[in-house]
């Protein structure tokens, strides 16, 4: 992409005249495909939400009928249960700590790696980037053994710290090019005005990097919020269960009560989907930036 000559990016004056004929998409086939994809994507989630308003007896009689009558009991039971809120609290606590650490330390590293010249800089960067090869799941068991050694087993920080560490690579990979692209003149001006470089970092560079910081923050948060294997291995007491663990264990506890499982599953989707709808543009934009470098 970067090698294309610049003039190709200029809109041609005849653009409207020569716009490519719309062929197969303007035919209903294209829309049919899209409708099918939409149905396959959204139907399962809608099904869980609506099914949660049924009773298990109704679902057993006819799995694909609308609830009749609609019952609130399943949702009410979950919204008022301590299992659910405890799990939300645990997930939130862990995700906030992991995200805060990943963003704070990641931006420090990205600053040093983008705006300082020092020997071994690329080696340090490479070390972090190599972390992209190894998702958290790969290291769950070794991490569990390490946490046991340092007494952080069955401890929420024992999950948050590794999650932060595993979020550092992607954070740095996204932030470094972003910080690099901020003009050097700004830094020179700040230094002329008597600021130290750390002050420049805190007062000027970080505020300017806000869009990228939001992206990496969301990525780290979602990664932590969704993590399953590490918490599964590390937590032995149910009080520490995060939402994914709680959903899975709720299902195995209430195997026979399908409607309740639907309701719990539906409720557990809400936080992730809410974050996503709130932040989708930033998240997608950041991923794009990361890929394009």
């Amino acid at each position: 992409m970067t090698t294309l000559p610049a003039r190709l990016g200029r809109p041609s004056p005849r653009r409207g005249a020569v716009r490519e004929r719309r062929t197969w998409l303007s035919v209903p086939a294209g829309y049919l495909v899209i409708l099918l994809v939409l149905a396959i994507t959204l139907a399962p989630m809608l099904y869980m939400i609506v099914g949660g308003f049924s009773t298990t007896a109704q679902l057993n009689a006819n799995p694909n009928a609308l609830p009749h009558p609609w019952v609130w009991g399943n949702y009410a039971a979950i919204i008022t249960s301590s299992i659910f809120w405890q799990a939300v609290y645990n997930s939130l606590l862990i995700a906030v700590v992991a995200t805060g650490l990943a963003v704070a330390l990641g931006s420090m590293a990205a600053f040093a790696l983008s705006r300082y010249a020092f020997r071994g800089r690329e080696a340090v960067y490479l070390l972090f980037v190599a972390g992209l090869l190894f998702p958290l799941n790969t290291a769950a068991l070794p991490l569990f053994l390490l946490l046991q050694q340092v007494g952080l087993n069955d401890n929420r920080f024992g999950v948050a710290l590794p999650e932060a560490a595993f979020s550092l690579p992607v954070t740095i990979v996204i932030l470094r090019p972003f910080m690099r692209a901020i003009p050097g003149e700004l830094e020179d001006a700040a230094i002329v005005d008597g600021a130290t470089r750390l002050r420049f970092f805190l007062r000027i560079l970080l505020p300017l990097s806000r869009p990228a910081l939001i992206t990496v923050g969301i990525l780290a948060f979602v990664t932590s919020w969704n993590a399953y294997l590490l918490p599964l291995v590390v937590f032995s007491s149910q009080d520490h269960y995060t939402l994914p663990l709680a959903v899975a264990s709720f299902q195995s506890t209430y195997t026979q009560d399908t409607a309740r499982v639907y309701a719990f599953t539906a409720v557990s989707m809400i936080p992730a989907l809410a974050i996503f709808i709130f932040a989708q543009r930033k998240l997608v934009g950041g991923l794009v930036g990361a890929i394009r470098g």
Partner: protein
Amino acid sequence: MARTQSARAAAAGRDIVSRPAAAGVPKSRAPRSRRRLRKAVELTVLIGPPVVLFVGFVIVPMIFAAWYSLYNWSGFGPLNDFIGGRNYTGVLSGPVFHQALEHNVIIAVLSVVIQLPISIGLALLLNRRVRGRTFLRLAVFAPFVLSEATTAVMWYELLQPGGPVDAVLKGVGLGGLVHYWLASTSLVLYTVFVVATWKYIGFGIVLLLAGLQGIPPELREAAAIDGATPWQATRAITLPLLAPTIRIWIFLSVIGSLQLFDLVWIMTLGGPANASTTMLTYQYINGVQRTQFGYGATVSVVLFAISLVFALAYQRYALRRDTAGALTRAVM
């Protein structure tokens, strides 16, 4: 966008030491050694904590795992039963591990052969001026943000015998297609793959859409003037220019397939009869549940080595052609 960014990066990348701008400013009166010291202190403060966190929780556990893998060890008490490479021969010669590795590879291959063309097709479709495009993009990306656990529980329920999926199939006259989706040894792995596709395809589509937006529309317009059909233009212009994005997608997809765990564990526990076991479910059963942590650590080392070999080979043969992309540049 990438162009202006790299131009600005070049402007910003000036070395602090060779910077002439600070002359005549009070700061420059400080002796050179003091400035050096100051820079060293700043760098330590900035880069020390992230390196410590990263080394402590990413590198050290892997080193420990390599050490534990040489012992017969229950995870508690001292490491005193040194058995050399016996864990490795156990893992590498075990038929169940072979099965698990085969399943990981099948999922990875299916991803590239099936998920990738579908993703490209849908990305091309969504890149056109379709009504409600923003909503469509939002919708296809939504499953990606759900947790694997929620996804797995949901599909486990939907795929129960006589459950919603079966009822839908019967409802549209395809009752003959009804199977024991999660209980049939010949089918379960493919069921898992379909669920994984449902969950992850949105990510691929969004990635490819981003790549498509980097391709100037004038190229296709010029081809259209020259008489190319849309299909010819797609094949000769769009797809080759999309290749760097596709290569990154393949990389991420294979690394993801190798560490598949959550979906499988919740839906099938790796069963029935190991028919859907993966390297990580194998590790969970044989390392964690049986408290043979030396053996489990061995699986980690093997998985680590497989990922590394794949990454290096892929780097060598596929990614080297790309000049853009942070991943690429850094690993080269």
